[in-house]
């Protein structure tokens, strides 16, 4: 009787979650339709801030889609048993996040109906075009990897498949970093440090997403995560958060050392209003130091602390991406070094940007897509990480 009741309750909750996901996705689609109908004038984006809130959401999801596979790689490539049990869930999350991120990127295009052009016309010198191949490749390879994990007869192939996925996602995140690294004239971008920085960010953010989803699934099934495994996962998250701090510091230190970059650094770290606030408060304090405290401080590190730390890491990631993407464009291009510049086109001026509701809804819609794929996936197939001790 109890089992029957629980089953009924589970069913009801599942459909509630799906309905919630569909609602968020519908709101995102409506926002995209509105943006297409009236043009990007209804967003906060303009000719100086050409990428805004949708790109913050999309890049978060695409970077996390790669990082979430860490858990799988540690299992399949490096042979760690507790991680092997988590590989299928990591694969599903990767596909879900990538689908969500790409949906947002696609629907933010000025001509979303021409996405077929992007799939049939390639400029092979463009890192964007390379990314189209990298994204579709990741879908395919993770799909095959999941098959080798979940179909018993294919199990022997899971190691080579895991190896391909491992290599592919490192290349994919390198490609994401290169989108910015290849911008020759932008002071915030155009450095070879960005691909490794993006890879390390992917490790932290992907693991944070994984830990949140795992906590939700364990809560749903009333299972406690084994303390030894929790300890390993939380220490790994802590290590990744520290690594991101290291690379972000190296990025800013390098800029601070170059006289021609000091005005930009002053803007982004001190004088730029919302951007320094989000950098120090959002990224460093809330998104990095607080999680480290929750993970490492004596008496902390329980499953609730780790869950809170993961949520904070994600809040921090949005802050950092906002500063990096929007703040990086807000600072004016240095077209005439050594001159004070004014014009009708915002030359020499800080670009103004206020995210509009449709942009935020579109971004949320992408998260909704990822949420729906995950929720339906874990319901339909056996993705629950089961440790041998259970």
């Amino acid at each position: 009787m109890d089992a029957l009741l629980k089953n009924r309750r589970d069913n009801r909750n599942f459909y509630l979650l799906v309905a919630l996901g569909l609602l968020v996705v519908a709101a995102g689609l409506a926002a995209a339709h509105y943006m297409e109908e009236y043009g990007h004038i209804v967003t906060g984006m303009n000719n100086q801030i050409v990428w805004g809130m949708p790109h913050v959401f999309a890049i978060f999801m695409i970077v996390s889609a790669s990082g979430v596979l860490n858990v799988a790689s540690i299992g399949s490539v490096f042979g760690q048993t507790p991680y092997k049990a988590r590989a299928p869930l990591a694969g599903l999350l990767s596909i879900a996040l990538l689908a969500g991120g790409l949906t947002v990127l696609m629907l933010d295009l000025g001509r979303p109906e021409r996405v077929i052009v992007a799939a049939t016309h390639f400029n092979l010198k463009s890192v964007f075009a390379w990314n189209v191949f990298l994204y579709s490749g990741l879908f395919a390879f993770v799909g095959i990897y999941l098959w080798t994990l979940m179909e018993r007869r294919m199990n022997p192939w899971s190691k080579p498949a895991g190896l391909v996925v491992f290599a592919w996602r490192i290349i994919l995140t390198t490609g994401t970093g290169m989108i910015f690294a290849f911008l020759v004239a932008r002071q915030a971008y155009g450095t070879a440090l960005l691909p490794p920085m993006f890879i390390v960010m992917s490790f932290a953010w992907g693991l944070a997403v994984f830990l949140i989803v795992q906590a939700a699934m364990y809560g749903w099934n009333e299972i406690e995560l084994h303390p030894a495994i929790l300890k390993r996962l939380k220490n790994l998250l802590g290590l990744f958060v520290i690594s991101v701090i290291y690379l972000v510091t190296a990025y800013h230190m390098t800029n601070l050392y170059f006289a021609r970059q000091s005005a930009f650094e002053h803007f982004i770290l001190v004088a730029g209003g919302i951007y320094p606030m989000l950098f120090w408060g959002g990224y460093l304090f809330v998104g990095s130091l607080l999680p480290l405290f929750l993970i490492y401080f004596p008496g902390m590190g329980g499953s609730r602390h780790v869950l809170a730390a993961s949520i904070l890491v994600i809040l921090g990631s949005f802050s950092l991406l906002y500063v990096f993407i929007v703040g990086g464009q807000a600072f004016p291009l240095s077209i005439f070094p050594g001159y004070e510049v004014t014009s009708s086109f915002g030359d020499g001026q800080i670009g103004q940007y206020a995210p509009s509701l449709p942009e935020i809804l579109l971004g949320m819609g992408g998260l909704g897509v990822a949420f729906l794929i995950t929720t339906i996936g874990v319901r339909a197939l056996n993705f629950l990480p089961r440790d041998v001790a259970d």
Partner: protein
Amino acid sequence: MSEELDRRQFLKGSAMLAGLAIAPGMLLYDLAHGRSLNEPASSAVRWGMLIDTNQCESGCDDCVKACNKENGLPGGTRPTDEQWMRKVELKDMRTGKATSLPMMCQHCEEPPCVDVCPTGASFKRADGIVLVDRHLCIGCRYCMMACPYKARSFVHEPLHDQKPDVPRGKGTVESCTLCVQRIDRGENTTACAEACSKAGHKAILFGNLNDPNSEISKRIKTVASTQIRADLGLNPGLHYEGL
């Protein structure tokens, strides 16, 4: 029989000779007077400009107005409005010297916008003009991120009353075309250069950088000029004098 052959050979020979004699003239004529619409642009030409900032008057924006009129742009100056051309006022921070100049697509030989465009919508014609194919542009704005000159605009709103020879599109990116519609009609000046001359400043000299006898080539050889952000190595087709 042999006489007939001789005559035929003579006729053939003289036709070839005549051809040889006329061809260079035709070629020069072609270069000077543009090409027919079914003929592709030629790399024998590289269109460019020499802008003399000493002649450019601060506060005068006749070139910008002419550009807007020629290309059917509304001429608004909100951050979301398209500005293919703008006047920039500069003040040297060390000496205080003030300079005024028009700024637009610099028509680079190595255009970053063309490199980054995923679909190949951003392209450089054989004659050096950098354009956007409005049918291939998906509106990703990556070219705007890549352009060192802030030369490109995104069409943020629906368009009305377009000029038939300057097709545009909502949701696509656009920039100065060096009045390609004029060049393809065989005219050899742009709307901005024409307006600047009419205003008496003659600050914009348009011409073929590949022709050593063109006025622009001769002037570039004799006066000190510079390219904006020459350090980037993109070799823009626009040169500035007095900067």
